């Protein structure tokens, strides 16, 4: 399999110094990133592209928020939950953020156990990650339901600028879709780990390629990215 990570690079002659050395390393023989497999490189470049998607979404939202002349609803009030007789601001979002960041922790542990060939622990940790992700999406559904029942719509809301609802549903919806896809693929990869596909070299159903435990790490890259994006959405949408 071509995807194996490179361990030995034969180099007989000294490298050029300075910037020329940087250019020479980048343009060197056969692969630019020596210890990066194809799948991992592809995921990194995809995430770079996806960063631009989320960047454009967030910049558009910020433009809308700054240029509208109607007051913007106060996030501390809008996203508050009425618990025990008082309004607790941002409590749901805090829990959601905690859940998602915890899922990054379990994902990291899954990657670790994957490289130790510990199939059982890897699969369990991945399923735990998926469960936390599904919890996040569930809480998001709850949040949407609450806001919708209070009269927030993509085209308007009771408290101020119409762009509040449109941006909120668009950005959290797009992020939630990412989490949902992540959960689905976590379950698929966990199943492959559990069944031992990466030990037996069983070819993939669609691609007919053999996978390796590195797929767990590539899955993890995506998951951490989705998590990181949430931090920015949290900062720019809820805390601003």
């Amino acid at each position: 399999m071509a995807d194996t990570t490179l361990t030995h690079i034969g180099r007989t002659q000294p490298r050029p110094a300075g910037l020329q050395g940087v250019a020479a390393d980048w343009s060197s023989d056969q692969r630019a990133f020596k210890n990066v497999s194809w799948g991992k490189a592809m995921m990194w470049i995809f995430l770079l592209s996806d960063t631009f998607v989320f960047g454009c979404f967030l910049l558009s939202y910020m433009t809308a928020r700054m240029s509208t002349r109607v007051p913007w609803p106060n996030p501390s009030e809008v996203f508050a939950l009425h618990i025990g007789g008082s309004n607790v601001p941002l409590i749901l979002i805090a829990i959601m953020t905690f859940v998602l960041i915890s899922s990054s922790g379990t994902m990291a542990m899954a990657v670790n156990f994957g490289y130790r060939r510990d199939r059982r622990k890897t699969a369990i940790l991945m399923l735990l990650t998926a469960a936390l992700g599904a919890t996040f999406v569930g809480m998001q559904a709850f949040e949407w339901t609450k806001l919708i029942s209070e009269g927030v719509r993509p085209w308007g809301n009771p408290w101020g600028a119409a762009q509040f609802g449109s941006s909120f549903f668009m950005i959290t919806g797009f992020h939630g879709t990412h989490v949902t896809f992540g959960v689905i693929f976590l379950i698929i990869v966990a199943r492959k780990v559990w069944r031992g596909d990466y030990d037996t070299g069983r070819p993939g159903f669609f691609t007919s390629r053999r996978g390796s435990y590195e797929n767990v790490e590539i899955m993890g890259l995506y998951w951490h990215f989705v998590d990181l994006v949430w931090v920015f959405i949290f900062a720019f949408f809820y805390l601003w």
Partner: protein
Amino acid sequence: MVDITPADAVPPAEVAEMELYHPHSWWTKYVFSQDAKVIAIQYSATATAIGLVALVLSWLMRLQLGFPGTFDFITPEAYYQFITMHGMIMVIYLLTALFLGGFGNYLIPLMVGARDMVFPYVNMLSYWIYLLAVLVLVSSFFAPGGPTGAGWTLYPPQAIMTGTPGGQDWGIMLMLISLILFIIGFTMGGLNYVVTVLQGRTRGMTLMRLPLTVWGIFTATVMALLAFPALFVACVMMLFDRALGTSFFMPAIVEMGEQLQHGGGSPILFQHLFWFFGHPEVYIVALPAFGIVSDLISTHARKNIFGYRMMVWAIVGIGALSFVVWAHHMYVSGMHPYFGFFFATTTLIIAVPTAIKVYNWVLTLWRGDIHLTIPMLFALAFIVTFVNGGLTGLFLGNVVVDVPLSDTMFVVAHFHMVMGVAPILVIFGAIYHWYPKVTGRMLNEAMGQFHFWVTFLGAYLIFFPMHYIGLMGVPRRYNELTDMTVMTESAQHLNSFISIMALMVGFAQMVFLFNLIWSIRHGREAGGNPWRATTLEWQTPQTPPAHGNFGKELPIVYRWAYDYSVPGAKEDFIPQNMPGSFGSSRGPA
């Protein structure tokens, strides 16, 4: 640059043999194929088919402009639909798809010495989603209200309002959905192209030994992966504005005497998003053309490319700069003078790396053994056309010149020269150049000569007068130009002349298409390397290359791609996979 490995040394294999998917049936071999070469042909055929639609639309527009009042069926609404679909199809569904999906898929694996793209299955999906995008686009012609007539830039608020064809019907929605699909499909292919170039090369193939074709396609793909997200976001947001009634781009607005439900949105935001994609898009089309034309010139002038290293850095530099010039498309939208100054400056700076490339092409030709083959004719035509189109770009890059010229035919002439005609000329040259590799037979020379001269001279007869009537003040986007003070009798004569030329150039393309089909059976046998070229795709054991490209053993690369007419060598070209010290000291490591 210091040579890292001696010319004859065989570097150890860093990239192991890749597992190929072996097709089991006719369907998986020719239809749902995972072979990049088949996918390339599928991409090219689809792009050509939809491009023909755009060509016919351009005839209809020119008939209306050249002979106003003669063709009753071309209503003002229909005219705007033609102009929109012509622009969108040509820029995205033809040029982008053909350069990256077509040439990228065919040439990248062959030129870097790989068996296939790194993830063939994803590559196959890329094509099928592209086809779906094209079908959605075509379906808008048959939808109630017809396709959108918003202009290819789809500027809101007019794009989704009643007065615009398709604005309150299906047209604009199908357009946006089609674009979103295109971007998803392209991303799948684009990731493949980038990773294949970065991580999947054969032994000895350093990045600085890549043919410039690969450099051009590679850089353009990276740019596309970073620029298309902006269009994606703009499309999603406008789709919501249209379908859900949000107001991302819609200000408070009165339509037909009625206050619409929208309010508080920013049409300028759409323009920023659109042009953050739209300007890099110009270079997404131009950079593969730059790369391909470098290889055509070097091969057909039997000389190494002049300043290879500078050519590479110019491609990368143009790619980077093109992300900081987008607002020069928005001078007439109104902006702070300092922003105008900034964007005018960055725009003019792009002329520097571009000029480096033009000088290097000319210096490659200097005292070369120039063979005036059809690919070479097209390459030479590209250089002059690109310089012509580029020079008017320097005019339009300046705010004070752009503002009065922006809504005239001068702009139409400018961008058709620089990003319409010029890249298309390269596409033709490239097809004449690589057709023998794809089919094993040469394209017919006589038909090729006819096609070249009519296309080249015809394009100038179309677009040179258009600059002139633009400077006279003839506006663009108007479906009828009679009864205007700027439309003097002589200007209308020129206008009719342009239309007749457009029909003739269009006819020449029919000859070309006939040639493509005719030569598959009746063309002269080409052999494996008819142009005596150095790059790896000409060194394959079979022509056309079989599945897996290179037979049993992948080639090992010992030299750069431009060892032509090396003194002391037996032949006037040394293939990249030929060991030995001839010429090795001349190329970069």
